[in-house]
């Protein structure tokens, strides 16, 4: 789809960005991103992608809105308490940008739905708090050769990397096991998760529009206490069960 005059009017200020331009904006318009869990990370991320004019968002998020969501899940509202989170995500994003298409799934990522969710997307954003979900999504992205932007945070720290199957380490290279004692509930200030979300959104916009440098083979670590950013070089894990023989890509078929 070509850009319309209305598109140019709405996205004028970002079309001025060097490297983005009309061509980049058109790529964004013709792109689809999957965001799994649309909470403290996924919510602000979805908001930034919607505002930037991504053509279609696929959102997967289960459960109903709780009081304890409201400090960081900025797509949720007090009048939404007790109702499905995904409804509020759709409503808030459509208010922000009615031009885009939104497909919703009122479940978190599972073995049963992961293939279909990933297959419909050009780019996947992993914003889930549970390692089981993240590693499942990573496995499917490697299998389908889809790029994955992985953002995570804990307390006053965050991290971010962009995974391109066959070219970079995958998430299982970084986390070969589910860490013991991990709890779904952990310390989060909304501004920290939103910072990581917007850095992830920038990675996605650059990747889809084709400009700038990506955090490939690199882990960005952000320390909100000291306001330090560090870039860490990361490597494939030769014995990785997901992408260990993924050079060239796609050799190892993960279990279906």
């Amino acid at each position: 789809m070509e850009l319309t005059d209305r598109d140019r009017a709405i996205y004028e200020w970002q079309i001025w960005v060097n490297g983005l331009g009309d061509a980049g904006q058109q790529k964004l318009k013709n792109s689809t991103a999957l965001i799994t869990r649309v909470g403290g990370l996924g919510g602000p991320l979805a908001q930034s992608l919607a505002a930037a004019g991504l053509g279609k968002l696929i959102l997967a998020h289960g459960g109903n809105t709780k009081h304890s969501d409201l400090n960081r899940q900025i797509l949720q509202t007090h009048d939404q308490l007790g109702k499905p989170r995904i409804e509020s995500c759709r409503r808030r994003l459509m208010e922000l940008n009615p031009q885009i298409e939104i497909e919703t799934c009122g479940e978190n990522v599972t073995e049963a739905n992961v293939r279909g969710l990933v297959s419909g997307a050009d780019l996947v954003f992993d914003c889930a708090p549970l390692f089981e979900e993240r590693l499942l999504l990573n496995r499917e992205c490697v299998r389908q050769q889809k790029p994955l932007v992985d953002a995570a945070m804990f307390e006053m720290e965050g991290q971010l990397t962009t995974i391109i199957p066959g070219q970079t380490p995958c998430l299982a290279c970084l986390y070969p096991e589910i860490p013991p004692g991990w709890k779904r509930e952990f310390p989060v200030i909304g501004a920290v998760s939103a910072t990581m979300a917007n850095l992830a959104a920038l990675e996605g916009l650059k990747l889809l529009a084709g400009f700038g440098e990506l955090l490939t083979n690199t882990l960005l670590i952000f320390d909100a206490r000291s306001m330090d950013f560090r870039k860490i070089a990361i490597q494939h894990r030769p014995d990785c069960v997901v992408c260990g023989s993924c050079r060239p890509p796609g050799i190892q078929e993960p279990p279906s």
Partner: protein
Amino acid sequence: MPALQAFHDSQRPLASIFQVKITVQLLGQARQLSPTEQVILHVEEGASVDELVPQLLAGAPDSLHLILSERSNEVQQLRRSVMAIRNNETIEPSARDLLKDGDEVSLLPPMSGG
């Protein structure tokens, strides 16, 4: 961990020509579980990150042991899910002869979505 640092300091030999000084920085969940975010260790030249772990965790709370370490053949080593970073590059925890005097090693347990 301050007590832990004092213990390490008391064990330091007067002549440490075969030892190197490594600053270990704890990140993420490990940082939250520890009263101090960094510990200075004096270890044998050539030591691997795995070999730092028993010293690092001597006297540390069980919760920190659980996050950072595991046992393999009765030897305490860095847990596989924890990333070892030397200065600004990840390194294999079992590799010897990589750590140099004055290096900073960061230990990063996994973190997840918010």
